[in-house]
């Protein structure tokens, strides 16, 4: 389509592309300065109310990896993230399939699906905490109606983390479902028709058409959910504050408390660097896969 000639003409205005990006770039640089300062702070003993700050090398990091509390938070964070993904991806896929079936209620159900996305996660944490109240919460009452013994939900170290993942699932599964639904709708009708003419059954179509077509979408939604669940904060902050007995003390919560409650900026930034590297590594790997998957299509 004359792409080359077009490219040439556009690049003759070579000054302008960067001109277009400059304002955005300024804002991005504005974010990079604090980022670099965070890296530096993680190598110091910086405290909020103490003027003197010393460079202490890797001490913060060494202390962290020796501390049992950090190891536990690290474990919990990874578990939280994996469990969220393991629940929300299949569930979201199921909902996407459900809402892709034409019916009279289809449009209405899609509106319902969007609702949790409009609720601030911190507020969702609050709503569910109210419902999960161990003695007079509605959830235990409902369980009682079907003769199931009351659960301690957020108030026991054994069930707290799973309860928080349940809240996370309520908040974020619609996001997963929406993206996958968009993927399902982008499957060309001819492809499906051709397959049924060839006599492919439902399972065949799922395995050889739908799933491969959805792969980039699944990867993309995994990128978002993996990073967001690793750095999850709002829901836990409201539902449990990291308790009981640190059972839900995710790394992001730990870094926040270290900085705000204990004023230990140096240590807090070391925690956040570990978390950031985890987020960055996982998104980078998945983004590269995603790019490859998109190119194949």
């Amino acid at each position, binding site marked *: *389509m004359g792409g080359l000639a077009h490219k040439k003409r*556009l*690049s003759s*205005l070579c000054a*302008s*592309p*960067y001109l*277009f*990006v400059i*304002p*955005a770039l300024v804002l*991005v640089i*504005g*974010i990079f300065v*604090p980022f670099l300062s*965070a890296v530096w702070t993680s190598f110091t003993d910086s405290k909020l109310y103490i003027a003197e700050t010393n460079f202490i090398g890797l001490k913060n990091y060494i202390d962290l990896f020796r501390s049992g509390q950090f190891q536990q938070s690290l474990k919990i964070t990874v578990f939280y993230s994996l469990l969220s993904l393991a629940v929300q991806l299949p569930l979201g896929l199921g909902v996407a399939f*459900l809402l892709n079936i034409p019916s009279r*209620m289809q449009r209405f*159900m899609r509106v*319902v699906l*969007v*609702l949790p*996305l*409009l*609720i*601030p*996660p*911190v*507020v969702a944490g609050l*709503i*569910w905490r*109210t*419902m999960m109240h161990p*003695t*007079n919460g*509605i959830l235990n009452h409902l369980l009682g109606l079907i003769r199931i013994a009351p659960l301690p939900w957020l108030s026991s170290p054994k069930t707290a983390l799973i309860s928080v993942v349940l809240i996370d699932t*309520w908040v974020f599964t619609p*996001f997963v479902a*929406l*993206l996958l639904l*968009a993927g399902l709708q982008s499957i060309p009708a001819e492809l499906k028709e051709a397959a049924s003419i060839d006599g492919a059954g439902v399972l065949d179509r799922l395995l050889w058409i739908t799933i491969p077509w959805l792969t980039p*979408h699944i990867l993309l939604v995994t990128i978002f959910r993996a990073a*967001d669940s690793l*750095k999850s*904060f*709002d829901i836990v902050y409201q539902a449990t504050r990291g308790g009981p007995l640190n059972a839900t003390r995710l*790394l*992001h919560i730990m*870094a*926040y408390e270290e*900085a*705000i409650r204990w004023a230990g900026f140096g240590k*807090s930034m070391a925690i*956040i*660097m570990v*978390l950031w590297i985890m*987020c*960055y590594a996982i*998104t980078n790997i998945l*983004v590269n896969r995603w790019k490859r998957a998109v190119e194949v299509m």
Partner: protein
Amino acid sequence: MATKKTLQGVLLYLGYLVMFLFIVFPLYWIVTMSFKEFRDIIAYPPRFLFKPTLANYRAILGLAGDGAGFAFLGYLKNSIIVSSLSVALSALVSIPAAYAFARFPMRLKDNLSFTILSLRFAPEILIIIPLYAVFSKLNLYDTYLGLILVHQLITLPLTIWILRGFFAEVPVEIEESAKVDGCGPWRILTRISLPVILPGVAGAMIVSFVFSWNNLLFGLVLSGPKTQPVTVGILQTMHFDQINWGWMAAAIVFSIIPGILVSGYFGKYLVKGLTEGAVKQ
């Protein structure tokens, strides 16, 4: 054959029912709680039927008369100011940027756009704590300007990313003919391409408004009494272990109204904005 059809229909609606209850019940519960008196709230077994009262709303809007309640409207105002101005600033900045990413051959293009997108994946505390020191020095702490700037961390990557997908969709041929007529790139953007993707701009703005509105951490660390948003304000209904459930529920209802209104009017743009950026490379 007919029975198979019926069975499928039953299963479909059963699926709808489960999904509907799971999503809507928590919302129903909190909305009814906001209309309950204290004794109805703490009653066990929980009451589905009760005499509704507006006392909680009167209290949080400062209409109670006896000085009880708290200034929830102030938090609401702060959130509206910060979120809408953040979105406006992001739109202004990202329209040209997204256009450049979609259209111009740039050597650093891929790296740049990924860097901007990866901001979205960084833990907020990473930026907020260093910013706290900077903001204190520059007198930006507890100001709208400071919050609007830091909210760019959420709204900017989203807007750029979504708009890039929309710009890439605009047929190059339309722009070609404008160029023959001697239009420069800036005029092509504002006169030709931008009008075509206005629905996309609406979608991007709604999505980033919702995400900005929902944010807790920026307000928690970088705002004080003057600029605290609703997500922080709601937490003020709880002092230590004393939770005023009725006020809390009423405040929650208020905090989710703007999101629901915005997406009620522009619902299809919301979904478009969310999914478009994802589907288009």
